[in-house]
């Protein structure tokens, strides 16, 4: 007999961003912003190359990798040869194009995106291990970063019913 299952709505998402390409960072930012816009609590943990997204000097200069990405095509849908991606300037050109396409959809630069997420109550954290490794200090990071914490501390923030951890 089919039982009617009652679903409880999602209450909190904890998003771990470990990569620093435009698409990885924006996937995390869109998910966090989308959560707060739906009234879902969002906490973000940036680690390893994901730290670029909250590092003042790097956050608005992210790139998309043009090498080893089989899903990438040129305008018109022609496959993008990896060899072409290796040429100087190509990665910068592709990255600029990605940013332009997102700007057309009213998707903001990284710093402004963090403004939006935190305006909605989202929280931003940096990974202790990775900041030590990359020799980054709190002052190198966006003012939206609440604290530099360990993954254990982050898990402690991930409690409660209907919480999900998302890794990108």
């Amino acid at each position: 007999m089919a039982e009617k299952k009652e679903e409880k709505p999602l209450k909190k998402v904890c998003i771990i961003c470990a990569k620093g390409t435009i698409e990885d960072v924006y996937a995390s930012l869109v998910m966090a912003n989308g959560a707060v816009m739906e009234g879902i609590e969002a906490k973000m943990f940036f680690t390893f190359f994901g730290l670029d997204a909250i590092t003042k000097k790097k956050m608005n200069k992210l790139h998309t990798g043009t090498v080893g990405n089989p899903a990438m095509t040129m305008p018109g849908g022609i496959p993008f040869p990896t060899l072409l991606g290796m040429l100087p300037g190509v990665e910068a050109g592709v990255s600029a194009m990605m940013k332009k396409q997102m700007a057309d959809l009213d998707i903001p630069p990284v710093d402004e995106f963090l403004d939006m997420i935190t305006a909605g109550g989202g929280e931003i954290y940096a990974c202790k291990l990775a900041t030590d490794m990359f020799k980054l200090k709190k002052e190198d990071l966006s003012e939206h970063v609440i604290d530099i914490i360990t993954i254990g501390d982050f898990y402690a923030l991930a409690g409660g019913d209907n919480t999900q951890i998302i890794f990108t």
Partner: protein
Amino acid sequence: MATKNIAGISVDVNEEGYMTDPSQWTEAIAKELAKEEDIELTDEHLKVAKYLREEHEKGAVLTIRKVGKSGLVDIKGLYKLFPGGPLKKSSKIAGIPKPTSCV
């Protein structure tokens, strides 16, 4: 599609309660719709609702970023006005379709 009596007026709504004909909207309806969302409608809310309606009529894609740049209210203020749904709740109260943007 269904019709619903809001503030004494029969309006077309979809299954989620969004009005499907923005021209049926009145401020009295906005007040009732706001109540359903536990919001006490103020002039601030109405300003945002009217802005959304104007932009919607122009065919613009609505985002909280756009509202934040409208000069009416910043994004933090928008969250305060429409807790838990800055774009969804404001659109519902403004009598326009549910927003389809992720930002």
